């Protein structure tokens, strides 16, 4: 069964949002459920630091052996860091989606947008858990 940590926020497109020590910066990745559906991840294409995205904009793509999927920005913001380690080890997305498999750290433009995300219960419901 897919792991849906209670302390994270989610989107319907299977991204998660984790708050960090710096309140204005969030960590974004894809959920355990999403990595399971994709299968073995072989490549993640991520933006450079400084790139800005609107809410819902495509910030990157993720490729598995037989599937490719766009990554959607859960909230508007500016990328402060992207996970360079995924270049060498894309499998980290499969192993630890909420840990080493994170994708970008984003400086949130409008904190209010965070409130519009799904909580764990709502996301679980969406994936039919």
């Amino acid at each position, binding site marked *: 069964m897919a792991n849906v940590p209670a302390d994270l926020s989610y989107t319907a497109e299977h991204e998660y949002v984790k708050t960090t020590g710096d309140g204005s910066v969030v960590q974004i990745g894809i959920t355990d459920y999403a990595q399971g559906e994709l*299968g*073995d*991840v*072989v*490549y993640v*294409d991520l933006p450079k630091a400084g790139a800005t995205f609107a809410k819902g904009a495509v910030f990157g793509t993720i*490729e*598995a*052996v*037989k*599937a*490719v999927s766009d990554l959607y920005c859960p909230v508007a913001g500016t990328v402060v860091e992207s996970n360079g380690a995924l270049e060498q080890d*894309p*499998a980290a997305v499969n192993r630890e989606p909420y840990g080493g498999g994170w994708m970008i750290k984003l400086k949130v433009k409008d904190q209010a947008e965070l409130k519009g995300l799904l909580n764990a219960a709502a996301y679980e419901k969406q994936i039919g858990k």
Partner: protein
Amino acid sequence: MAIASSSLTHPDRFASRHLGPDPDEVRDMLKVVGYGSLDAFIDAVIPEDIRLRKPLNLPGARSEREALAVLRALAAKNQVFRSYIGMGYADCITPPVVLRNVLENPGWYTAYTPYQAEIAQGRLEALLNYQTMVSDLTGLEVANASLLDEGTAAAEAMHLTAAATNHDGPGTYWIDIGCHPQTIAVVRTRAEAVGIQVTVADPKSFTFKPGTIGCLVQYPGTEGDIQDFRSLAEKAHGAGALVSAATDLLALTLLTPPGEWGADIAVGNSQRFGVPLGYGGPHAAFFATKDAFKRHLPGRIIGVSKDRAGRPGLRMALQTREQHIRREKATSNVCTAQVLLAVTASMYAVYHGPEGIKKIAERVHGLTAILAEGARRLGYKIGHAAFFDTIVIEGDEAKIKEVVAGAKRRRINLRPLGATRVGVALDETVGLEDVEDLAQVLALGKPLPFKLDDLIAAAKSAIPQGLIRTSPYLTHPVFHRHRSETEMLRYLKQLEDRDLSLTSAMIPLGSCTMKLNATTEMIPVTWPEFGRIHPFAPRDQAQGYTDLFRQLEEWLAEITGFSRVSLQPNAGSQGEFAGLLVIRAYHRAHGQSHRTTCLIPQSAHGTNPASAVLAGMNVVVVKTDAQGNIDVADLTAKAEEHKDTLAALMVTYPSTHGVFEASIREICKIVHAQGGQVYMDGANMNAQVGLCRPGDFGADVCHLNLHKTFCIPHGGGGPGMGPIGVAAHLANHLPDHPVVPLGVSESCGTISAGPWGSPSILPISWAYIAMMGKEDLPEATKLAMLSANYIARRLAGHYDLLYAGKNGLIAHECILDTRPFKQSAGVEVEDIAKRIIDYGFHPPTVSFPVAGTLMVEPTESEPKVELDRFCDALIAIRNEIREIERGEADREDNLLTNSPHPLADLLADEWKHPYSRERAAFPSAATRAHKVWPTVSRIDGAYGDRNLVCTCPPIESYATVG
């Protein structure tokens, strides 16, 4: 006893050879399906309102012998001149061992694209050799396993350039005026469709401003000149633009390769490595680029991975680049490759090796230099001082006119270049005696004022000092080990034996139509009268081809119910692209150029949306209902919503789900009512021939996959042909050609490098139609559908049929729902597919059009005994799944999860599985008699994609078997 007059016609009828089930078996199969007659069954399958209720207006069936006699007569109307025209095509010598054992060998030509890697290691190795050859010769890191022709490869280079440079807006692109004219035309057509601005000019005048995405140069140029593009590449890179070079593999054995002077991409035609000219094709185009751009590489890439036991194993890599996954986000729509021809070209390199190929190149260059020297002494000017195998001879108008006429008298074709210049391109088949002939032509009937030996002594290399190749190539042992014919023959056989082709078993791939490729159909392909004609030879030398094209076009028009047919598109994807451009040209001609919205059902093949985007259209997806049919309400709503911009609907019929949708007429009407045109994907035409016609029930354009319905073999992943048929109102917009004008008034542009795509394989489709005739073509269609329904019925109770049309019947293919077994037994569709390999079959199509399912298409050519053997295998596999479901077999370690089982595992000293070796190896009685063994166990796809290696790995890696 009297002699019955009916006994005087030869009893052998082609249809009884082409069709698998005999009349008794047909009766038995009908009984299982539940119908008293074939006609009653067909009436129940196809909606009444689209039925064709008259015979096709085609000739009657001819015997194999008669058809060959007609083809002989057509071939005799082609004249094989010595063609020194060049322009990307050169006559060559196919090593006979390769000709007979690859090109003419059903073990190679009847295989499918190597999606099932475990039973395709042979051609995967041949294709890896091809990639290694291309990568070495071009000096670039990654190469693909072939594209359709040089023109479309150059267009793909432009698309890669656009994707990799990632400008806002489509950008501008330079093309070298020294590119082959057909290449320029194809690239222009592709550029216009997506709004890229192209300027054709001398490379010295290229400027790279913001918005310039890159350029294409020809190296050596179409007139044979060799330019140093180093500073151009520097200039381009300084501005963030990319440089593509269209080039020639033979020249690159002597010239500094593009990768070493700064090109980012190299493309070209590998035809001269042993592939016949064929009046334009089929040939394999190559494409190589830098590692940095590998994720934008179009077409199929073969990569090295490993199997479960850690043994090296090959497979198609990075499939997520491809249109079937990326759909409207793909940067290329290319699907079919030219595998058979790529294998041929790679084997030419394997057989000759680097030394042999270099000597061939040096000889051609030497002869060209001698000819140039002779021309100078005869008072002509040589257009370009630096050349490899092609020169331009310049003289006054009267002289040049006489040269061309004199050449013709000696049955030599030169390249006319205006009134005062003529091009001469030499090739591997040319000898000193030919050069002497040419010198005599240049001497205009006067005795030669020199001896050939004097010319030989005086001729000098014309390759610029700064562009002489110094780097090694083809260093891998595979290019050094097969010099004797005995070794070569065994290498070819060894590879062939690793692969499953139609020579061993049924290949029930849904949507692929793996029917018989009859020997009689194949025999003419390699006749010199079809094989050795240059695509740009004067048309009066190809009268046989002209007649064959005309007849085939007429027959295909009759079969589809259309007014005109264009044979130019080289594959289904190109047919789609061409058809959509025809529609755009039509709208433009009616002042409706804003019509660019293309409706595509969810269930469409991924190539459809990719083609639409490349044709400059916006894709709007139409929903599919629970039965897998187009959701008519959603279609109506979307057509209404987009009525101001509606260009077309792309629809596959019968649907990709293998069902005749009853509402197809209505669907076409809805689209027409909103000003759109209907594009029909003809991939499933094998369910229509003789029974219904797209042109009758509302389609405006349709492509045909001649490599499906009309018997061109799949060649292990190409060649293909994708001609399009159009209704009368679109005929003016069909493709044209810059070198061989086809008389189209408002053409949509140029789709392929050759005016008629790949002519040398057209006798195959011609022969099929001629031998089946109007009587037997509909029989084939009916039996294709009967066989599919027979399979569906026999598997009932074991596998659920995902979709069916009216009366619970399907068309010519069926989707088996294998998704429930994931829950019930932990078995995935992949496990079932690989276990089918253990039973000696090629698996059906996996996960298309619905993820997690199998799609089975038996075709009309499989005998009932083979259909039964296949059904028995699937039922036996279902029972193996039941063992897991009941807990009798282990959920993790079972016959399915460990499949396929190669001999190396079955015969190992150690065997740790809970089931017997025997059950794994010989799951059915038939497999004891014969089967193709997988040569590796299941290949790890993720490993290969994470660690991409797409050239031959060092030989030691084969020794470190885990």
